[in-house]
């Protein structure tokens, strides 16, 4: 194996001689230069592999004397890891910068090489003063390269940087020399052993000065204005090295130095890191310059990493512990790849403003890379950051460090806001300027794209703690295959997905038991059914299939998950897939963002809940342990509930839903509405079936949830009646519908749950059908506004029938299945004695009639518009699933026992008493009985009688022309005001206006405004003056000292 000292020898030797090579030609010079980088990478890579395989750690002594008498270097696993990453970055960023190196003087390459030599030294040396030397090598080389473009911005940024890093290294020098005074040593480990804090304040002070100088190099908030300027102004290739490489080296220096810290200083470091993470992400919210935004994000990520490390040390982990490596390594790798990649993309796009990046869409590879990097930074699976963050939260939870988790999750959430805003803008902004892609620029991006995916997979394998994620591997592999097959036409991909999905369902369904079967039917069978409408699309529909499948993978994963890790991973996969589905709609960008933010917020709250669970139940991950929580039940219950409710869109957390469902594509709306909403319900069922009763203080949480459900029903339905947009009407109605589900669950009784679960199935059936039917109408008519429709019954009879059946089932009138739900609900309410809530629920149910009526009237009845005269029936691909759903509703209506009995049987495990008594097809409760078959017969009979009677008395009825206004109450073919269906329930709005005002929206808007304006206020402290930045640093040092000394 090659002695690691050759890394330095090669770099220095080549560096010294490179200017001589220049005389022999640029090609030769560049060949030598890249070979040097390659050899450096090779040496560290070789060591990395060898050390993973168990080779002994190499301690290098220079000058032939052992430490502490000479400087020694170390090549252990951590060093190999860091140097390998840094050197690989050296090659890739070098390739990215190739044109610059070609056109510049040879010094560019020399400086670049020296910069990497310095970083390697920072990682490998174990001598304090030598650290200083390498720090200076790195920073002097960096500073020289920052101004590679020699324009005003980069030069003035570079000047701020050189002053700031000069100040930092002066502090470092001071700390080092005084530590030498106290210990007589310069070797870091020996120094740490010899250090005696008890001997006086000066020791603490010296270590503090040393620490703070490293932290300044790591760019803490608020003493980091100088670094932000550099991120914004310097060349992208150079910045990628600073953000990923130099930060990595300094991070490892911090880790080395941490051996010297006492408890107090460790807390200080952890605190600074957390604050930096939180505030960087907060300030980034107001940032519209892409590179400065990335700068904020980089600084935040680095803060997170060193605070995570410090927290782990405080929690008693040794630096080499595997968990520490997993978390710190995972977070680091995630940041490293993503940030380098994003800065390269910034160099490729060449746009300052982050909302002008849509040009990326001209290259699928780069767009994919961008999305992956963003998702990785946001901490979503299957990327390394996700696993690291999970593990971090679990470990901190185990030690009870909940405030720290709170800060970290809050920071992560703020980060998600701007990342997804950016992603949405890139995906949706039109028109865009195509970008020119040069192979040497795209290649490094592609390499790190691959790397981040592979490390994600690798981490998913080692995280398991006895809970393997292997159940998700094959499905995710299929997603990857779909990405690769994305060039195929829709017809092929749709069929492929249906076939594979069917096979998967066939394999999975037998593994399910209990209520999971019910959800399996909705998630999996329903999923297959709702892929059929996909055939209406033509072309390739890039990106749809992999991500749609990813959503279903997540849903299936939820069904199969046995522990919180699997559950959470699946949950996030589902969120991720559905986000990309929702954002496909034409005007979906803001709605998809709002969906994602509620989902991410919910997921973080849920993660905290799982953390608390991990804390109290003896560090187990099994979901089954929910049933035997010794302590903090109320907190866990509330946190998880809050997480699930965001997906169920309960009132207060619902504002994302109307837009997200309403603006989605024709076949996506039913997926996200009929299927995806049930994921939240599934979570609630898992939770509530494990924890039957829970109180916080005097507050009975299910009771609160009951009220929440009732109000959701009422307000959801009320808001639905005012909608002019047919799909939004359906979307609001879903809010109300899920209110029933929540209400039923909150009853915490056999009947309540029976109601809820059957209602869920029912909702799946009718909402899928309605969205398909209305989607078909919209598809044909070309508008979603109901006042531009009307009279379509003759043109679209099948759609009419399915809407008719859908609204009958929805409104819960006999004879269809909805009635079963209603009947059960009222029985359950009576049984529980929640009369007041019951009243709200009943009124809410009445309101549902209003919008149901409107839906059928305004769309299919009345006068047809001229424009719509030629409209044809919806395409077959939309009709087939509707017909299947119709049949399902009919069967369910006639034979409700087929569903209710098995569900009831299962529910006896949870609620032994209070179920239905079945005698043949008739169900009995203490309040009455009910038989679906007879209801169908009686209602059908009555309907027939009325029909026959009407036909009999109206024998003389005659058809009139449309414009015969004697018979028609409208003046046809005029703007919307002439459509009777327009603003149909204006009178209700007058009466109930105060209830329908958007308080909730206003609340969230205000919250957003406050956050943004505080970000805007705080960031004013970066006034651009280099002198102020020096002052920031000094003030920071002094303030932190007196805090950490006092504290």
């Amino acid at each position, binding site marked *: 194996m090659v002695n690691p000292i050759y890394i330095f020898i090669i770099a220095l030797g080549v560096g010294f001689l490179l200017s001589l090579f220049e005389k022999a030609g640029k090609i030769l010079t560049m060949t030598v230069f890249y070979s040097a980088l390659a050899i450096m990478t090779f040496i560290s890579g070789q060591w990395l592999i060898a050390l993973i395989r168990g080779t002994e750690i190499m301690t290098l002594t220079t000058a032939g004397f052992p430490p502490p008498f000479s400087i020694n270097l170390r090549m252990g696993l951590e060093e190999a890891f860091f140097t390998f990453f840094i050197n690989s970055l050296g090659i890739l960023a070098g390739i990215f910068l190739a044109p610059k190196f070609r056109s510049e003087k040879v010094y560019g390459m020399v400086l670049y090489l020296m910069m990497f030599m310095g970083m390697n030294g920072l990682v490998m040396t174990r001598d304090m*003063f030598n650290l*200083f*030397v390498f720090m*200076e090598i790195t920073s*002097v080389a960096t*500073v*020289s390269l920052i*101004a590679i473009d*020699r*324009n*005003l*911005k980069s*030069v*003035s*940024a*570079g*000047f701020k940087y*050189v*002053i700031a890093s*000069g*100040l930092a*290294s*002066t502090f470092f*020098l*001071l700390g080092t*020399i*005084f530590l*030498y*005074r106290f210990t007589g040593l*310069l070797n870091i480990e020996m120094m740490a052993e010899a250090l005696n804090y008890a001997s006086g304040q000066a020791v603490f002070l010296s270590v503090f000065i040393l620490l703070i100088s490293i932290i300044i190099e790591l760019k803490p908030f608020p003493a980091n*204005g100088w670094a*932000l*300027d550099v991120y*914004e*102004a310097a060349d992208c290739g150079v910045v990628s090295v600073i953000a990923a490489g130099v930060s990595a080296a300094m991070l490892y220096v911090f880790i080395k130095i941490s051996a010297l810290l006492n408890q107090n200083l460790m807390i200080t470091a952890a605190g600074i890191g957390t604050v930096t993470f939180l505030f960087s992400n907060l300030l980034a919210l*107001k*940032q519209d310059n892409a590179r*400065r935004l990335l700068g904020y994000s980089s600084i935040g990520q680095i803060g997170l990493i060193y605070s995570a490390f410090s927290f782990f040390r405080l929690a008693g982990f040794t630096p080499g512990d595997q968990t520490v490596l997993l978390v710190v390594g995972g977070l680091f790798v995630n940041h490293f790849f993503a940030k380098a990649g994003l800065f390269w993309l910034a160099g490729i796009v060449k746009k300052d403003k982050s909302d002008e990046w849509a040009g990326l869409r001209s290259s699928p590879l780069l767009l994919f890379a961008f999305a992956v990097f963003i998702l990785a930074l946001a901490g979503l699976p299957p990327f390394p950051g996700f696993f690291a963050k999970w593990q971090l939260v679990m470990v901190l939870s185990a030690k009870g460090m909940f405030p720290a988790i709170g800060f970290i999750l809050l920071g992560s959430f703020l980060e998600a806001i701007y990342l997804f805003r950016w992603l949405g803008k890139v995906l949706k902004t039109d028109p865009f300027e195509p970008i020119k892609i040069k192979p040497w620029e795209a290649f490094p991006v592609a390499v790190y794209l691959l790397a981040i995916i592979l490390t994600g997979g690798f981490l998913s394998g080692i995280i398991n703690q006895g809970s393997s994620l292997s159940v998700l591997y094959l499905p995710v592999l299929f997603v990857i295959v779909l990405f690769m097959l994305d060039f195929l036409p829709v017809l092929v991909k749709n069929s492929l997905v249906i076939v594979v999905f069917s096979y998967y369902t066939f394999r999975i369904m037998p593994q399910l038991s209990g209520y999971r079967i019910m959800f399996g039917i909705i998630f999996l069978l329903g999923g297959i059914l709702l892929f059929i409408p996909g055939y209406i699309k033509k072309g390739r529909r890039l990106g749809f299939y992999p991500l749609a499948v990813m959503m279903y993978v997540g849903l299936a994963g939820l069904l199969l998950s046995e522990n919180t890790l699997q559950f959470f991973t699946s949950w996030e996969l589902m969120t991720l897939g559905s986000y990309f589905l929702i954002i496909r709609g034409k005007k979906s960008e803001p709605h998809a963002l709002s969906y994602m933010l509620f989902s991410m917020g919910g997921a973080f709250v849920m993660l905290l809940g799982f953390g608390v669970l991990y804390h109290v139940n003896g560090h187990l991950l099994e979901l089954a342990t929910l049933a035997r929580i010794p302590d903090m039940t109320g907190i866990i219950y509330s946190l998880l509930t809050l997480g699930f409710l965001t997906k169920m869109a309960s009132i207060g957390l619902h504002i994302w839903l109307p837009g997200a469902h309403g603006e989605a594509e024709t076949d996506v709306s039913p997926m996200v509405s009929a299927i995806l909403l049930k994921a939240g319900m599934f979570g609630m069922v898992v939770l509530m079936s494990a924890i039957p009763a829970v109180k916080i203080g005097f507050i009975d949480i299910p009771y609160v949830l009951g009220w929440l459900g009732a109000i959701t029903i009422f307000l959801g339905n009320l808001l639905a009646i005012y909608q002019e947009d047919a799909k939004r009407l359906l979307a609001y109605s879903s809010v109300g519908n899920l209110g029933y589900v929540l209400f039923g669950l909150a009853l915490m009784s056999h009947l309540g749950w029976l109601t809820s679960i059957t209602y869920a199935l029912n909702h799946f059936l009718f909402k899928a059908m309605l969205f398909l039917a209305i989607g078909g109408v919209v598809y044909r008519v070309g508008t979603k506004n109901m006042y531009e429709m009307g009279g379509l019954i003759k043109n679209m009879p099948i759609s009419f029938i399915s809407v008719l059946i859908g609204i009958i089932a929805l409104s819960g009138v006999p004879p269809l299945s909805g009635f079963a739900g209603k009947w059960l609900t009222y029985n359950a309410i009576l049984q529980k004695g929640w009369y007041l809530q019951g009243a709200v629920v009943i009124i809410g149910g009445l309101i549902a009639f209003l919008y149901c009526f409107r839906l059928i009237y305004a769309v299919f009845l009345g006068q047809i518009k001229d424009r719509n005269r030629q409209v044809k029936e919806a395409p077959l691909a939309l009709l087939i699933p509707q017909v299947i759903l119709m049949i399902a509703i009919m069967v369910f209506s006639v034979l409700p026992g087929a569903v209710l009995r098995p569900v009831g049987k299962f529910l006896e495990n949870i609620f032994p008493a209070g179920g239905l008594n079945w005698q043949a097809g008739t169900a009995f409760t203490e309040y009455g009985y009910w038989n679906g078959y007879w209801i169908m017969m009686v209602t059908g009979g009555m309907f027939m009688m009325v029909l026959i009677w009407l036909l009999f008395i109206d024998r003389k009825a005659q058809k009139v022309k449309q414009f015969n206004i004697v018979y028609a109450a409208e003046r046809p073919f005029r703007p919307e005001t002439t459509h009777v269906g327009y603003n149909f329930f204006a009178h209700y709005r007058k009466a109930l206006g105060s209830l329908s005002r958007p308080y909730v929206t206003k609340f969230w808007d205000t919250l957003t405004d406050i956050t943004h304006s505080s970000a805007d206020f705080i*960031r*004013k402290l*970066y*006034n*651009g*003056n*280099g*002198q102020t930045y*020096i*002052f920031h640093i*000094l003030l920071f040092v002094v303030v932190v000292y007196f805090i950490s000394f006092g504290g």
Partner: protein
Amino acid sequence: MLIITVLGIILVVLGLWGMLTQKNIIKIIIGFSIMDTGTHLLIVSIGYIKDRTAPIMDKAVGNASQVIDPVPSALVLTAIVIGLAVTALMLTYAIKLFEIRKSLDINDFKELKW
């Protein structure tokens, strides 16, 4: 307490004062230089042992008990050279800034902020 330690710290603080209050970039760099010098003085002061001489083992110096600590002297040599390099680089920046904007006032370079 060594007078030279106090002197070093005074120089460091003076240098910082210069860096924080002077508007002229050259003067800021001078401030940095003063601070750097202060640090060097501190380093030297650490190695000093009363009544001893330089660690050059010629005939005049017989044994180990007569010399000061050679390590800080070695370190300060490195630190001085590095300080020189950094200062030179800062000056180069100053030249470049002046070339671009014809000004050396630090307040004139505030394009990047927030």
